[in-house]
């Protein structure tokens, strides 16, 4: 048998293969499913954004509370008028 005939024969056999008779129905069902998912997504997105914002705010409050200072600290008043007296550091006066 010639090569061309063998190729044509092979193609002819492949062309005889029919798709499943429910393929169109299957595609329509898939289409319905994907449309339902698309419809659900905006509502879910809004909910997800609201939940994540709430979580972020709560986490912020939580983290802020961790570093809270206690009231039992000692206060020291420093009179720094002498420190600021720059005359002390004038080089000429030590010569």
């Amino acid at each position, binding site marked *: 048998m010639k090569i061309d005939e*063998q*190729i044509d024969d092979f193609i002819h056999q*492949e*062309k005889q293969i029919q*798709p499943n008779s429910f393929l*169109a129905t*299957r595609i329509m069902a898939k*289409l319905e499913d994907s449309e339902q998912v698309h419809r659900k997504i905006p509502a879910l997105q809004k909910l997800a954004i609201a939940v994540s914002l709430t979580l972020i705010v709560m986490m912020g409050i939580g983290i802020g509370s961790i570093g809270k200072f206690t009231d039992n600290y000692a206060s020291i008043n420093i009179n720094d008028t002498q420190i600021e007296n720059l005359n002390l550091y004038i080089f000429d006066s030590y010569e």
Partner: protein
Amino acid sequence: MSDEQLIQEILSGNKEAFHTLMLKYQQPVFRTVMGFVHSKEDAEDITQDVFLQVFRSLSTFQGNAKFSTWLYRIALNTSINHVNRNKWRNFFTASGDSLKSIFNRSNEDKNPQQQLEVNEREKMIRQAIEQLPEKQRTAFILSKYEELSQREIAEIMETTEGAVEQLLQRAKLFLRKKLAHLVGK
């Protein structure tokens, strides 16, 4: 109902019109895809992807070309992407498939030895078609599986009829060269 009317119906929300359009074109799309993947299951999955894509992007169809031309382009792109994505998988499963096909074809009047030879020959032809360069393969499949004219193929591939003729000639020579050893088998 013409394609244009069906498209208008689909765009206005009539799902039944899409079902009609699908019934009209599922065979040609399936056949074209078969030319690329040579597997019924894969061809069905890809046909499904093609029609889902068509439905989602139908509003972008401008009607400059025929609907069938646009549809063929989507089918070709989806098939080529699938083939490129699954190159390695195909390489490993090719040997398994040929064994499977021996056991699946019990209705033919051939003994196992003859059946094995037939399968081996089919496998070689399939591999030779798969080895065709992309453009030659596309033109070859549209010509042989879909029996489209060179003008229609040129329109789908957005090229000239002369270029299509050349692609088909080269594809023929390529296959003859690759399968030369089959003569006389």
